[in-house]
């Protein structure tokens, strides 16, 4: 009879879902949630004894009057450090004197590649800002790698610093982490209320205008992230959690990376095989122009903003 009681829990689909959610791992038995580090507790006597022992050892070891070797080592250390620094400075200055003069026509950096970027850049990419045009079309593959590095970096920080939801709530209730910070600071709040919209709009402007004016995805994303950090600092994490929490973060970050991947791979495949690509370049100088640069700028901007804010939030309290 027991076989007839077929529950949802036994299906492969459910175990896949469990594995995706991180509640169950086929390789590990039992609960695999992250636990906060346990604080080691020693009684006062032992700590004092260790401290006294340590001081005693240190006093005997580094007593330069009795210990001849320490005295010689200290002198030698100082002299050799000065000599080494001088040598290093000398070598570097010697190398600098051999560098070619700035702006010389025969310098090795004045080659075909740079010439091509400058002469045909506007025509081939449609971007007025030549730097954006270069890094997002000619070198889009490099930038894709960099975006992946950002993604992996936040994943690593999350693995190391992220706390369980239960521990996070406990920490918030005890307010142990925020003892020495001003709560509900009026000056900070007012400044943030005035500055945050300006900073966020400026960041969005830089991302969207990346192919026309200086800036682009990375700079704009960094400004957005900084604005979000200011908002979280002034208003508290519960307030920013209403519009930017872990779910929004996951969706925004992964969809931005996938968007870059999709647009980029279309561009690489058509470019590598000599197929005509159907993304119109538009009129240079307009917002909707220069082909793939605008969507890729948006994707990179979202990615960078999420990374910056995630670093801040994870360092600060161990959760988004």
């Amino acid at each position, binding site marked *: 009879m027991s076989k007839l009681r077929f529950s949802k829990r036994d299906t492969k689909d459910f175990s896949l879902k469990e594995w995706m959610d991180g509640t169950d791992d086929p390789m590990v038995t039992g609960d695999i949630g992250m636990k906060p580090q346990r604080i080691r507790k020693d009684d006062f006597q032992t700590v004092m004894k260790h401290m006294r022992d340590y001081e005693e050892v240190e006093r005997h070891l580094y007593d330069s009057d009795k210990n001849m070797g320490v005295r010689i080592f200290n002198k030698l250390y100082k002299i050799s450090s000065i000599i080494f620094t001088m040598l290093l400075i000398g070598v570097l200055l010697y190398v600098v004197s051999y560098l070619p003069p700035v702006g010389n026509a025969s310098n090795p950096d004045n080659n075909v590649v740079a010439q091509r970027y400058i002469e045909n850049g506007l025509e081939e990419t449609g971007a007025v*800002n030549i*730097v954006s045009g270069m890094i997002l079309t000619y070198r889009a593959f490099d930038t894709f790698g960099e975006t992946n590095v950002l993604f992996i970096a936040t994943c690593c920080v999350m693995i190391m610093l992220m706390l369980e939801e239960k521990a996070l709530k406990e920490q918030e209730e005890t307010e142990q982490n925020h*003892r*020495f910070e001003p709560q509900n600071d009026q000056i900070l709040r007012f400044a943030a209320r005035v500055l945050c919209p300006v900073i966020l709009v400026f960041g969005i402007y*830089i991302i969207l205008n990346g192919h026309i004016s*200086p*800036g*682009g995805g*990375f*700079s704009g994303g*960094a*400004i957005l*992230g*900084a604005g979000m*950090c200011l908002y979280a600092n002034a208003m508290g994490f519960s307030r920013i959690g209403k519009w930017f929490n872990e779910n929004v973060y996951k969706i925004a970050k992964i969809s931005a990376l996938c968007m870059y991947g999709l647009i980029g791979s279309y561009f690489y495949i058509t470019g590598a095989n000599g197929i005509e690509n159907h993304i119109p370049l538009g009129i240079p100088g307009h917002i909707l122009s220069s082909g793939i640069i605008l969507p890729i700028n948006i994707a990179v901007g979202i990615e960078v903003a999420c990374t*910056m804010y995630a*670093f*801040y939030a994870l*360092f*600060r309290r161990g959760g988004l």
Partner: protein
Amino acid sequence: MSAITYILMFALIACAISVSFSRNLLNSILIYMGFSLIMSVIWIILESPDLAITEAAVGAGITSLLFFITLKNIRAMKGDEENE
């Protein structure tokens, strides 16, 4: 190179030297922030506004913020010691 470029370059060197001689970690971070700000002005003078924006946002803003939080987490700020 105008006079203001020389002044900024000199301030840059002064910042770089004073970071290594400052004993207080909080002061070092503040000097480092100043270094980044001066650097971003120099980038504008060198006609690369992209780098100036990035330097101001990342160098002066977010990196120093992460340093501050790290100092707080390892309890190396001065206020923490006095209170405990």
